[in-house]
Structure formats: structure tokens, C-alpha cells
């Protein structure tokens, strides 16, 4: 067990903000929340891994296959035009959600991971050479580490890592020091899936641009939590996933500034991404299609569009307040348990709590909580360097969504007391 947390001071309890909406009404939109697990009411606290889907998203998927299905951008027939329209409408919804300038800047992908790989292998391969540097932070998810390691290996560029402090905040001065004229790409997470840290990305992007580095933001956790304005942030790329924001799995997007995307070579070749093909010369399609080879996840895109409608109907302001309410309540309730240590006490934090229980391994906690119907994540959260930083093999993580309740956190706390009892 790590010695690290024994020296740490537990953060002062913060006054609980008041809940802002009738969560019971919201819960009615999510059919899965009424199911039972091992004989108990499901308490789903693994939202940072994937969120549950509201009925309108589920309906969109079944409606599509039931009455709208066709391949897009090809046929002149009715259904093809209908499907193409729905698909492009979803793209516009994403554009408007993150305030991009043009639909051409929104590339559909399978998710955050594919979006990051696209940038690494298209932009990275074309722009990196031996001696250049790619800068990331200690709190990156493996999906924002490994693609850069692969591309660094191929190009001879070097991967540098900005350190974090004991609270889980990036040490800004150290980050700034690592930026130099060698830094060609900065790839960093907006909200850490392992610690909950919300990074001050606007300030960090500005610093990166002062050395002319391109900036990619891993927004996998962002879009379920906070409103994003890519123009105001001025990031060059942003990657995110549909399934963490109440949409289907297997769909996500890459935002890229048009001038960047236009200069980049295609990522994959195939149908849909070409203008014309001959054995002598192939010309590529316009943006965004240049980066969308093959038949895409059409129904996924439409479902994601509906999820965006759902989020916007409630509004990020209310969602944010509800999340803060849950976060503060969970922080207080969990830190009141003897031997619980919260990992990640960043200044600005999203609604998730990573914690360890002295002497009890997270996997044992996870298995026992599961028998009570409580779904939490245990392990390294695909962020092994974060675990290494805190000298822990794993943590237990409870992550909250717009449908979670204070009572569910009470049940989590009861569950943890049950675990302690078994091991005492």
C-alpha cells in the first residue's frame, strides 16, 4: 500500500450547493436505471467509463433501422437522401455544441481514441521530425499517450511529460518550462478520467501557441460536464466520444481548425473520401469527407445528435450545478469514512471521486459493491502513469452523471462500510 496518502491532508469540506432540478424526472428518461442487479436496485456510478442512454437516443437508433436506413452520400433514392440529411444534421449539432466555425471542421470518428490517432498519424507524421518534441501531461489516458509514442518512434521525435502535483493539478510553471521551439505538438486532457482534474486549458493552449506548437485537447470527459467553445479556447484539435455524453458507442468526433485539416494528408483511404480515382492519380474529397473513409457509423452519429439535443434541453449550467452538488456531497461523505483517502483534490474538479481504502484492494471493493448493485470502476483507469505518480496499483472510482442522486451516494457509503466490515 502506498505511503503517499498518509502524509496528505484531507481537503476541507466545502459547503454543499443546492440541487437544481428534479432528478427523479430526469431518471425516468433512462430505462436502464429501473433495472435490478444481483437483486438490488442498480446504482450506476461508472459514468466516466460510459454513460447510460436516454430513451430518445435509444429510439433514434431503432427508428433509423426501422424506417430510415440506407447508405449515405451515394444513392439518389429517397432513403439515401433521408439518411444523408440526418447524418449531416448530426454534424451540424456537434458544430453548434462546441461552437466550431464550420461543419467542415467536424470529422466523425469511432471516438476519442480514433480522433487522437488520426491527428497523430496524419498531422504528426507530416509535421514531426527527429529532434522535435511532443508534450503531454502525467494525467493522460493511455489513448493520449500511446499514439504519440508510436508516432515518435516513427519520426524520431521525443515525448515529454509535464508533471502534476500531489493534488492532481498540472504544475503550470513546469509545463511552461517544457515548452520550447522544439515543441511541435501539445496533446493534453481537459478533464482527467482518473483524478477528475479540470485543467486550465485556455491558459495552457495560449502558452503552447506562444512557441507555435499545435494543440490537441482530449475532451473525452468534457462534453458530458462542461460547455465547450473551441473558438474561444483556440485549440487546434479537440477529440471526444459520443458514448460518454449519453450517445451510442462507436461514434465520436474530431474537431480540427479548417486550415490544419486542409493541409493534412488523409488518414485512411477508401470510399467516400475521394473525389476521383484512377490508377494514375486519385484526388481526395473536400473536408470533412477527406477523413471519413468507408461507410461511417450513421446511426451512431444520429444517436449522438439526439444526445446533444438532450443535453442542451437540460443545459450545461444546470448539469454543472447538479454535478457540483453530487461531487461536494460525495467528497464529504467519503472523506468522513475512516481510512478512505481521496486521490485527486484539484482546484477545479469534475464530478468523479477516485479513492483508496487503507488495507483493502479496489478489486475486492468493486466485487462486493457490485453484489449490492453498485457499479464503480476499479483498477488503473487506463492511466497507469497516474497510478505510478501516486504510488498506487489501483483506485476505486465513483463517477457521477446528470441522473445520479444524493441517495445513491449514501448507498455507496453504506456499501463501503459493508466492505470494511467483511475485512475487519
Amino acid at each position, binding site marked *: *500500500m502506498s505511503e503517499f496518502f498518509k502524509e496528505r491532508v484531507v481537503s476541507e469540506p466545502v459547503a454543499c450547493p443546492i440541487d437544481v432540478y428534479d432528478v427523479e424526472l430526469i431518471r425516468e428518461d433512462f430505462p436502464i436505471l429501473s433495472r435490478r442487479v*444481483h*437483486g438490488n436496485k442498480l446504482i450506476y456510478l461508472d459514468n466516466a467509463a460510459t454513460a447510460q442512454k436516454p430513451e430518445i437516443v435509444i429510439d433514434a437508433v431503432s427508428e433509423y433501422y426501422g424506417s430510415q436506413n440506407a447508405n449515405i452520400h451515394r444513392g439518389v433514392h429517397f432513403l439515401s437522401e433521408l439518411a444523408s440529411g440526418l447524418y449531416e444534421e448530426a454534424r451540424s449539432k456537434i458544430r453548434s455544441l462546441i461552437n466550431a466555425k464550420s461543419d467542415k471542421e467536424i470529422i466523425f470518428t469511432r471516438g476519442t481514441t480514433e480522433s487522437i490517432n488520426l491527428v497523430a498519424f496524419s498531422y504528426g507524421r507530416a509535421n514531426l521530425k527527429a529532434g522535435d518534441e511532443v508534450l503531454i501531461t502525467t494525467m493522460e489516458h493511455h489513448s493520449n499517450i500511446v499514439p504519440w509514442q508510436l508516432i515518435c518512434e516513427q519520426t524520431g521525435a521525443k515525448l515529454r511529460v509535464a508533471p502534476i502535483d500531489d493534488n492532481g493539478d498540472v504544475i503550470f510553471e513546469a509545463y511552461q518550462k517544457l515548452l520550447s521551439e522544439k515543441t511541435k505538438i501539445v496533446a493534453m486532457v481537459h478533464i482527467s478520467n482518473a483524478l477528475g482534474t479540470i485543467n486550465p486549458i485556455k491558459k495552457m493552449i495560449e502558452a503552447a501557441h506562444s512557441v507555435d506548437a499545435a494543440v490537441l485537447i482530449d475532451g473525452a470527459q468534457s462534453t458530458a460536464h462542461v460547455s465547450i467553445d473551441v473558438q474561444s479556447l483556440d485549440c487546434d484539435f479537440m477529440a471526444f466520444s459520443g458514448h460518454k455524453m449519453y450517445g451510442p458507442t462507436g461514434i465520436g468526433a474530431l474537431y480540427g481548425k479548417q486550415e490544419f485539416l486542409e493541409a493534412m494528408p488523409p488518414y485512411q483511404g477508401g470510399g467516400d473520401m475521394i473525389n476521383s480515382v484512377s490508377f494514375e492519380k486519385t484526388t481526395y474529397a473536400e473536408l470533412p469527407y477527406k477523413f471519413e473513409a468507408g461507410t461511417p457509423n450513421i446511426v451512431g452519429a444520429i444517436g449522438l445528435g439526439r444526445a446533444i439535443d438532450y443535453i442542451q434541453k437540460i443545459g450545461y449550467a444546470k448539469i454543472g450545478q447538479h454535478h457540483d452538488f453530487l461531487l461536494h456531497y460525495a467528497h464529504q461523505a467519503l472523506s468522513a469514512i475512516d481510512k478512505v483517502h481521496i486521490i485527486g483534490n484539484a482546484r477545479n474538479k469534475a464530478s468523479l471521486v477516485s479513492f483508496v481504502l487503507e488495507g*483493502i*484492494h*479496489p*478489486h*475486492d471493493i468493486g*466485487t*462486493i459493491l457490485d*453484489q449490492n448493485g453498485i457499479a464503480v470502476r*476499479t*483498477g*488503473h483507469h487506463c492511466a*497507469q502513469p497516474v*497510478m505510478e505518480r501516486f504510488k498506487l*496499483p*489501483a483506485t476505486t472510482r465513483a463517477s457521477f452523471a446528470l441522473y445520479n442522486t444524493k441517495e445513491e451516494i449514501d448507498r455507496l457509503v453504506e456499501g463501503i462500510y*459493508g466492505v470494511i*466490515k*467483511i*475485512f475487519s
Partner: protein
Amino acid sequence: MNEYIRELYQEVILDHNKNPKNFKSLGCATHSAEGFNPLCGDKIDLALEIEGDVIKDIGFQGSGCAISKASASVMTSTIKGMTLDQAQGLFKEFQETITSDLNAEIDTEKLGKLAVFAGVREFPARVKCAALAWHTMISALDQGAKEIRTQ
């Protein structure tokens, strides 16, 4: 606490987790291997002192959940003094037990103390925790002595 949890976290397992046997490094190890479970980050360093074909001493270190730690503890105390053939035979028995059908009879006589791990059958995600020490032991005997993984 429901019956499956009680079955999984039996007193014996909790005791071994709290006070693991043979939790030590060996000064005169002849065989060793590192076992790693990449999904959960469980790690075990296993060392054996083998004389002729007998396991004279065995020790393990590392970090892991209660199931993996207890399994390593029970395994080391069971196979200490056994011949290599006996240890390998027991590995097969153990492996078959924890991956067997839920309704399959457990041969408690053959398995002895190891029978307490039959409870993991109810928890497919935890089978690899119970198996980690055993796979590491086999890997040490095979003397590739490379890092092994259970997945």
C-alpha cells in the same frame, strides 16, 4: 452480505490476505518469475529454491487484491516440500476447479485447502486473480523466467 460474497471471502481467504504465508524474498532462489495482471495492476514476484526435483523453499512479494494474495499464500504453503511433478499436477487440478462449471462437484479431498477458491467460479472477472500466483509459479519452473500475464 449475500451468500456469494460469503463464499468468495471465506475466513481462510481473509486470514491469508491479512497474514500471508511465505511473504518474503528468498536469498538463495534458483527459479523466479514476475506475474502481472495488466487489467488490474496486480503484481507478484515469486521465487523458489529447488533442490533436485523438490521445492525446498518458496516466497512471494508484490501487491494485489485479497483473492490473489490469499491464493499466493495458500499455494506457497501447499507446494512447499512437493516435487515439481506434484506441484504441476496440483496446478492443473486448481486450474480446472476455478474454471469449472458452477454445478461441478469439487473434489475437496484432492484439493485440500485450495478448495476455498472454488467461490471465484461465481465471479468470472476474479478467476484471473486466483490464478495469477499459479501461472507465475509454472512460468518460474519453465525457467523462461519472463513476466507472465493472466487475461
